[in-house]
């Protein structure tokens, strides 16, 4: 499988990363180089092999159903680039 410039632009859109035309051109070659190299995984016989989900066997724990945090609004908002009162500010979404 190889990618063309339209695909690169689509991936950039899905990734929410703005790219210029020149960057997209450059990325076509780079992504194809990397993808051609990872294709070799296709030659491995994986019949009957389950995809790995946990590298060290470990059960997901359940914790007691009690409130363990909260009431830290100032901390949550401390690094907001555009705080508005006690909210995160964002550009207008609905016209």
């Amino acid at each position, binding site marked *: 499988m190889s990618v063309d410039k339209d695909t690169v632009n689509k991936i950039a859109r899905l990734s929410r990363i703005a790219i210029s035309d020149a960057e997209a051109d450059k990325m076509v070659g780079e992504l194809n180089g990397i993808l051609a190299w990872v294709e070799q995984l296709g030659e491995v016989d994986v019949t009957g092999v389950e995809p790995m989900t946990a590298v*060290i066997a470990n059960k997901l724990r359940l914790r007691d159903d009690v409130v363990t945090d909260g009431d830290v609004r100032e901390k949550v908002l401390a*690094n907001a680039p*555009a705080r508005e009162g006690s909210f995160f500010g964002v550009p207008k979404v609905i016209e």
Partner: protein
Amino acid sequence: MTDFSKLGVAAIRDGVANGEFKAVEVAEALNTRVANAKALNAFIVETPEKALEAAAAVDADRAAGKPLGKMAGVPIGMKDLFCTEGVQTTAASHILEGFVPTYESTVSANLWKAGAGMLGKLNLDQFAMGSSNETSYFGNVISPWRRNDGGNAALAPGGSSGGSSTAIAARLCPAATGTDTGGSIRQPAAFTGISGIKPTYGRCSRWGIVAFASSLDQAGPMARDVRDCAIMLEAMAGFDPKDSTSLDLPVPAWEAGLNSDLKGKRIGIPREYRLDGIDDDIAAMWDNGIAWLKDAGAEVVDVSLPHTKYALPAYYIIAPAEASSNLARYDGVRFGLRDLPEGSGLQDMYAATRAAGFGEEVRRRIMIGTYVLSAGFYDAYYTQAQKVRALIARDFEQAWASCDLILAPTAPSAAFGLGEKTSDPLSMYLNDVFAVPASLAGLPAMSVPGGLSKDGLPLGLQIIGKALDEQAVLNAGLAIEERSGFTAEAGEWW
């Protein structure tokens, strides 16, 4: 007057405990060394006041007769991937420039509780993505090492924990934290002639560490010898309910358990790691390592890890896939950089912020990850890679039937020059060929100095152990350390 730059973790801890010197004296001396080493660019932020404050608290505790922690009085460097309350944490990225956490990572909190102090936040590859520390927004870290050809070519300190490796090799600090996703503790340790261990996945809490690839990320210590690594790993490790993959197991007394007598241990030599065209210096060092472990009483056996050649390509699907998901949080809304072009809406803000805030390698990996997880390609790439990962883990399981530990080189070469591999991402990725398999299998693995190359640069030997058997890994590392006679240090040119 003691030269504190020469002392390791154990020596500082014991000297402070015995009253030979004050913790504050050590902190002052190392603060000065850090301040005078700007040419190495190892630190993004220096925190001399933090080092002094922790040291003063240790001195006060000792004066009051209170018990001292495992790392009492030891000033360390903190990789800038660990969130530190009130101190900027950037992951060496522009997107987190100015981010000041309101909480402390579990691992760093454990270290402060053990009496360590912070000299500063160490530079790294951006979001820990890189093998040479050339992807940091805050500039390259320069290795203190130089080739013995009389030139002064700037060399890579390895990556991603390149600030950590440089600071320790340059004797700015006795130890530092590292994190290892696909070799980021071991390869920089090898490049700079120091030691470092990645423990079993789940030993150290990931809570408060800026996430790269969560199924692989694991913190560990880097220091100038094996004992110091054992001490610091004890302080870092432990169960943490805030990390769902944290192992609920007691922390072994690794330092007390150190024993370099390897009688009864079988060391596996994986034939697939002996690549065609292997570097002569690396092959010779590996042979020396085999001889040293035999001398320590171990039996050496051939083993096969048949899927080794597929580890790197599997890693370069799995790690970017997880990164693309983890890094989705950088949206310009809640923290970090925001780039809002005039008149643009929310979607444009996301795209502009992420284009401006992520470096080239990070953007590349997010896009690869997005692609391999996208509809129509998920099974062919991601599911296939996770199946291959299961086979790589199974290779190790089968090898453990005939051996207890595996010995291999850490990296395929000595340190390369800055700029030598930046034009070709693939050639950079290939530097992690020996480090990645243990990461994919979640196994403990350590790099210790194995000798010098013809160019006078350090080379690392890697020991891989069974899950949870850090002790055997450390013991074999100690056996090598006692026999290698590695005393070389980087000359102080900075």
